[in-house]
């Protein structure tokens, strides 16, 4: 278990990379730190590893306050984004390195390295140098080295980002299975929301050194608590439209929608995922709860198309199944599915609409 309280890291020059952050990560959890570039994910991970000294705040691992402990005393293993395999050592020596530091005899540590390597199907590569390995193999050697040190916590900094798109999917499944088997608390950093949703038990979405939301992938996906998270999660960005509540009705981009109960009148932000609207190419008769516009862009997503409607001064995106895509320039209408939209006021989630 890792618990962070009031953790702050300010770099010389005044950059607050991590800003009074509180977080609890449970035993055996696969935990993702997700956020845009520069939001402080790596800094947070390095602070947990002990490679950065926090400006203030506390870090506890397994109930022990390690804020002032050097990295080697924290019982963690880190996999760096560039893997940091020692270029002058072969795969065996790389995997056995943590044991060498622990003064395990050469014979025992080589046996241990071979055993760990076979688990990650690296047995044929034991005598190679890192430069003679592919990216995916290097990644597995880095994992094997981390596993060989038998830590309480794994820390991964963008473990998949150096792999090509196809290999990344394979490695993702592999990583998830491995973490399940080992059941070691794992914190990993990623800026890829798909990766975080696919791998993690829980996700912390970060922005500018702060945590915006912590939750399971489904919570973060279905009920993002603020517009930033809403816009960040999802393979196609959520529509976030200015709206206003007046006399029990919701006015959004020319449409009039029913207003959920308990929402007071005033300005709002209306959030709707492109997947949760249907596109109609003929004007729905007598309905005011639809967005009308002209098709501005059609993007092919493989099994679906992402259609961007130009509705006056707003753009609305809708995902349309294969074969139903409209022609560019045609008039079209987006019909929101009931109960799928989210309403935000002052950057906080009110309720679904």
């Amino acid at each position, binding site marked *: 278990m890792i618990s962070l309280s009031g953790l702050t890291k300010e770099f010389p020059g005044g950059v607050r990379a991590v800003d009074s952050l509180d977080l609890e990560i449970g035993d055996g959890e696969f935990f993702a730190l997700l956020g845009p570039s520069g939001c402080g994910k790596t800094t947070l991970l390095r602070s947990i590893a*002990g490679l950065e000294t926090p400006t203030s705040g506390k870090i506890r691992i397994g109930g022990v306050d390690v804020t002032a402990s050097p990295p*080697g005393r924290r019982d963690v293993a880190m996999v760096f984004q560039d893997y*940091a395999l*020692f*270029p002058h050592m072969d795969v065996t020596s790389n995997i056995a390195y943590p044991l*060498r530091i622990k003064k395990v005899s050469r014979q025992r540590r080589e046996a241990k390295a071979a055993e760990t390597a076979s688990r990650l199907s690296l047995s044929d590569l034991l005598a190679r140098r890192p430069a003679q390995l592919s990216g995916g193999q290097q990644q597995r050697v880095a994992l094997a080295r981390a596993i060989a040190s038998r830590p309480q916590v794994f820390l991964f900094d963008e473990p998949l980002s150096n792999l090509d798109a196809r290999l990344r999917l394979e490695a993702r499944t592999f990583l998830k299975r491995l973490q399940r088997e080992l059941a070691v608390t794992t914190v990993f950093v990623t800026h890829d929301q798909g990766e975080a949703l696919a791998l993690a038990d829980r996700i912390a979405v970060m922005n500018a050194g702060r945590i915006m939301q912590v939750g399971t992938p489904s919570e973060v996906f279905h009920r993002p608590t603020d517009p930033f998270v809403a816009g960040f999660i999802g393979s196609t960005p959520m529509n976030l439209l200015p709206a206003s509540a007046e006399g029990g009705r919701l006015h959004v981009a020319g449409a009039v929608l029913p207003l959920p109960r308990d929402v007071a009148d005033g300005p709002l932000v209306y959030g709707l995922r492109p997947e949760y609207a249907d596109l109609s190419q003929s004007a729905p008769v007598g309905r005011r709860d639809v967005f009308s516009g002209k098709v501005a862009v059609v993007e092919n997503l493989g099994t679906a198309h992402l259609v961007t409607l130009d509705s006056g001064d707003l753009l609305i995106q809708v995902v349309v199944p294969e074969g139903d895509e409209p022609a560019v320039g045609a008039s079209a209408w987006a019909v929101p599915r009931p109960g799928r939209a989210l309403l935000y006021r002052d950057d906080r989630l009110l309720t679904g609409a």
Partner: protein
Amino acid sequence: MTRHALATIGRATFLAVVLGFFSLPLLWLASAPFDAHPSITTSLPEFTFGNFRSLLDNPYVMSSLRNSLLQAAGSAALVVVLAALAAYALSRVRVPGRDALLYVLLLLSSVVTGTAAMVPLFELATRLNLIDTHLGVILTLSGGLLPAAIFILKDFMDGTPTSYEESARVFGASSLQILRHIVIPLVRPGLATIAVWAVANVWGSFLQPFILLRDPDKAPGAVILYTLYTEGGAPRLDLISTFSLLYSLPVVVMYVFVSRRYGFRFHGGIKR
């Protein structure tokens, strides 16, 4: 067409002249030791091994080679160890004014072992009881070589990513373990370069050992070479050329060996 041919001939002639200019002294060094009557011109030798015999009759010749070896090895070891530690620290720790410090050191180093500082150096060595000791020569020469060595090695260390060391640190390695297991192996070509460069420098140093050593038993080859004159003050070309050949061989052998083994590189980066 003819212009092109003329240009080629011109270039070849120019290169031949330049090549001759540089190779003649080497040719002399190769032929004169085996010549019964060497002069300062290069000619086909009247072949003999007699020069070597008369050279070895000089009691100081062999001991001077040993002294050179001792002083060169001592200085190289000192320079490599101290420069590696200093360069590592300077490369990894942010100290304000670090680069200025390095440049000032580099500037001063040419002064410290230079002719201008010989009097104060002699004075210092006298007070420290280092006159007439190998240690005195080693310390003086190392002091002069260190700044440049630190400068070059720091460049090598800057070229190795810190993530290797951080990775080792997370596994619990101490600073010295990191230096031994990770940094030194990665900058080994740099260390080899510095060691060879230090040896070659000390091997050729004349002024410092000449001033700091009184006892001819401790003098290195460069100083003994200076004594190979007749009573009348004329240079004994037979002995000088023979000794020069003998004296340059170890350095040549070392260059070839180290370059085979490690390869020389004067800038950082990792051989993967």
